[in-house]
């Protein structure tokens, strides 16, 4: 009996291993703008990215990681995080090492300040020229030494008019008693605070403790009305009509729209946060050369196109944005005309003492 059961388990393990290789059909017409050497075949590349942030082979699109593996023979070990803060924590603890991470602007600034990033030579990237100049030399990486832009975006409010009609185009709606138990807010501190800071008309990077306190008080006031604090759970909640209104990233709204065409979106009149998520290489990198190949691969017009269509965020890649076949070509939510663009602010890395202060305010908010 014992032997039989062990044999069964082993058999199951073998079947799983065998199966994990099949299923996806590789593209046979993958046009690339450069050669990818196979000299690093057999090595492993640890990639740490946001959830739902790469084309994964569903809906007849490319599975970016699998295509890269096929091309170079490098095994991509792909894991995801749900906030800049949790990514930072994993990296800082030293528990795990990564070769590629994709944090947002302010987190890149922090990682750079804490000497946690490896310098990369962007001139060695053959596809770097596709990146628009307006996304180069930004505050978090003035000399383009540490990062390559991956996506850009703004935060707005998604709502379901069949459930709540047309709300006022303000962050205030998230506090509105009318939408009790139907509204959501962010469950990460930086974005959560932003919603309150915008109402209060604050600088998002204020170093004034009383500003943060005022924002925290406002958040506390709105807590009772909310249904829930969420990150990517918002997809399910908005698509099924479980929740009726909530803030999220513009690109994700377009993805939700595919599953629930009732949903609508606006940028609140008070203004909003704009962000750049960029590809970086942490200090703990094990295969810098393989990582550089991967970065160049992500910039490939065909790869960037599938990623942009899958993820739904605005792309900093001209080969995507100027391609008339691009699904979101000229989309006014992703690429609004200057007159339709709300006042926007970037997050910056904040003095550690202030950061600790607002992080503790956030903890207080979540405690009974």
């Amino acid at each position, binding site marked *: *009996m014992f032997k039989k059961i062990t044999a069964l388990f082993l058999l199951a393990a073998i079947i799983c291993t065998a*199966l994990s290789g099949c299923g996806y059909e590789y593209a046979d017409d993958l046009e690339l703008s450069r050669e990818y050497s196979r000299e690093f075949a057999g090595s492993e590349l640890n990639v740490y990215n946001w959830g*739902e942030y790469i084309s994964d082979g569903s809906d007849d699109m490319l599975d970016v990681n699998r295509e890269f593996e096929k091309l170079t023979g490098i095994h991509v070990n792909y894991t995801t995080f*749900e906030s800049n803060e949790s990514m930072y924590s994993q990296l800082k603890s030293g*528990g795990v090492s990564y070769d590629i991470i994709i944090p947002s602007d302010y987190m890149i600034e922090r990682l750079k300040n804490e000497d946690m990033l490896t310098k990369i030579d962007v001139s060695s990237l053959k596809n770097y020229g596709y990146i628009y100049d307006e996304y180069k030399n930004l505050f978090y990486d003035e000399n383009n030494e540490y990062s390559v832009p991956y996506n850009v975006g703004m935060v707005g409010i998604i709502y379901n008019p069949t459930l709540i009609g047309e709300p006022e185009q303000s962050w205030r709606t998230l506090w509105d008693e009318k939408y009790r138990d139907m509204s959501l807010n962010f469950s990460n501190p930086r974005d959560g605070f932003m919603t309150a800071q915008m109402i209060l008309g604050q600088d998002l990077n204020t170093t004034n403790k009383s500003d943060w306190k005022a924002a925290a008080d406002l958040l506390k006031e709105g807590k009772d009305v909310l249904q829930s604090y969420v*990150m990517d759970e918002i997809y399910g909640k908005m698509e099924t009509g479980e929740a009726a209104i909530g803030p999220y990233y513009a690109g994700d709204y377009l993805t939700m729209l595919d599953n629930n065409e009732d949903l609508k979106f606006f940028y609140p009149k008070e203004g909003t946060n704009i962000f750049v998520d960029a590809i970086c290489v942490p200090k703990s990198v094990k295969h810098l050369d393989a990582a550089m190949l991967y970065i160049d691969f992500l910039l490939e017009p065909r790869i960037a196109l599938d990623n942009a269509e899958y993820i739904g965020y605005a792309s900093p890649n001209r080969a995507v944005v100027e391609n008339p076949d691009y699904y979101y070509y000229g989309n006014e939510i992703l690429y609004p005309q200057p007159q339709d663009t709300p006042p926007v602010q970037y997050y910056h890395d904040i003095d550690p003492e202030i950061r600790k202060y607002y992080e503790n305010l956030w903890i207080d908010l979540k405690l009974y």
Partner: protein
Amino acid sequence: MKTFSKIYIALMLVFLYAPVAVMIFFSFNSGASVWIFDEFSIEWYEGILFDTAMMEGLKHTLIVAVLSASIATVLGTAASVGILALRKKISRSFATTVTNIPMMNADIVTGVSLMLLFVFFGRIIGLSESLGFLTVLIAHITFNLPYVILSVIPKLKQTDKNLHEAALDLGCTPVQAFFKVIIPSIKTGIFTGFIMSFTLSLDDFVISYFTCGHYQTLPVVIYNMTKKTVKPDVYALSTLVFVVIFVLLILYNTVQTKSEQRRNSRV
């Protein structure tokens, strides 16, 4: 009374299986939602094969479960024999305490304390990465060991000491006597310990979550998936796992019943 007890049991089973039924039902949903049903479809079952993350997770889980249960079974069986031979009160109470702690403690405390240990030592010896396959394996062995000991010790207490001494008198070496006399008489205990360890290891989420690093086991993969939109593919995989275990348990049960009947008829 009879009907009342039947109704009660039936109601409890409805309670126990309602979520399972929901899971199986929505795994056949053609839409992407797990609570609004569109049409019947098996596309998510096909989709599982596409999902490298889930398949890798499953592979990791099986490897860790098989290895940790085997190692814990060997180590734990040896420990049980040794613990019963301990004479000093202090060493006995030490053994009792270290066996009880992982079972009594909350998983989250076990998980974070092990993580602190691994990360701390990783930093001391300058590792760029302290969590991974080895640490999750160590963690699983650690929480499996008490369950092996718990199932072996009662069997050891039941064995007739004279048998062992008779074997020695008849010329067995102590090692031979151990394998020819003691092991066969505690076989069922060892087996129970192995199965319990395997189950616990397969199902563990909390301790793996804190100790696995890149080596994500299936529950950790599923946890990350439930942070995003849960699609019916997670349900499809769970349904498959459920069916496999169901079949295994039924097989195990019939085999056991048959062997018991055989034994009874021989008597």
